[in-house]
């Protein structure tokens, strides 16, 4: 190899090695981000089939991200409010939602991971939810709690964050 190519080649090699390191041995924060991405992708329809086996596969993909005792608390001012408890309730709700909104698209932004402990973590995210209908886009901030079990992170709690409180 000519000397003029040696340096760029080494640079590319080092960059590839760093990428491989990041991909195959991700940091805990990166692992949590991947769980979030898996959950996001499983609830986003984005034109994917929403019935039969495809639906089951997607809901299954979502439940792989959740603990058995997962809790979801939704309280949006002037909008949706309610609680879900346990993976079965979440599975049923996710299947219903996917069928009701076949064009559902969820995007996550401003992901902040904090309180990262060996077996627990907290994250705040802004979810932009587009139901696919006219004026069907909304953004909502969520706080998520994670638990680590056998080397894998699971979502144990999801709650909406309200900017204003009464007390």
């Amino acid at each position: 190899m000519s000397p003029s190519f040696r340096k760029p080649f080494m640079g590319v090699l080092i960059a590839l090695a760093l990428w491989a390191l990041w991909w195959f041995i991700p940091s805990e924060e990166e692992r949590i981000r991947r769980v979030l991405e898996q959950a996001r992708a499983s609830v986003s329809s984005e034109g994917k089939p929403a019935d039969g086996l495809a639906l089951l596969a997607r809901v299954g993909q979502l439940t792989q991200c959740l603990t058995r005792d997962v809790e979801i608390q939704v309280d949006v001012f002037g909008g949706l409010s309610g609680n879900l408890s346990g993976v079965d309730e979440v599975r049923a709700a996710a299947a219903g939602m996917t069928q009701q909104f076949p064009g559902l698209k969820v995007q996550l932004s401003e992901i902040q991971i904090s309180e990262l402990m060996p077996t627990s973590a907290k994250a705040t995210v802004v979810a932009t939810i587009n139901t696919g209908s006219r004026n069907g886009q909304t953004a909502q901030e969520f706080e998520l709690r994670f638990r680590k079990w056998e080397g894998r992170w699971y979502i144990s709690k999801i709650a909406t964050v309200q900017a204003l409180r009464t007390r």
Partner: protein
Amino acid sequence: MSQLSDTPIPWWQVMAIGRNPRTTLVRLAITLVIVFVGFRMSIQPILVQGISMQPTYRDGQRRFLNKLAYRSAQPQRGDVIGIQEAGKQVLLLKRVIGLPGERLRIVQGTVLINGELLEEPYLLPPTNGVQNPARWNVAEVQLQDGDHYVIGDNRSMRQDDHYFGIVNQNRIVGRLMNP
């Protein structure tokens, strides 16, 4: 070559791009970067949506927030502020009526701060015999350090339809400019 460099540059060219176009371009690029960064750091444009700040601000109006307003000062009573609702892009526009350490309650639409009546000249006067503000009631709250009580100017709407309450300082983005 020397003949070329001695050729006088036309006045319109000097006016448009300077004597040395390359230097002018560099200066222009630096200025644009400084303006862009400065604008992003200090000002946030907002689009008013909804009716909770009527009559002061109407649906569809465009305004600007001064993001540096509270770097060295605290929000004051009467300030109209932007609050992070969902991340940095979705904001609430509300007026500060209660400050940290104060006791606040609302009795039949009248705001009481530490037991004293708060005058609110920005509210609509009673119209056609209809009380304005409407007869809202909020039990007494004690504001902690860093907490501010915020509310919209439209008190003629139903209390349940109006989103108001206590906000922590860390969610305040800035003060509305040219209120």
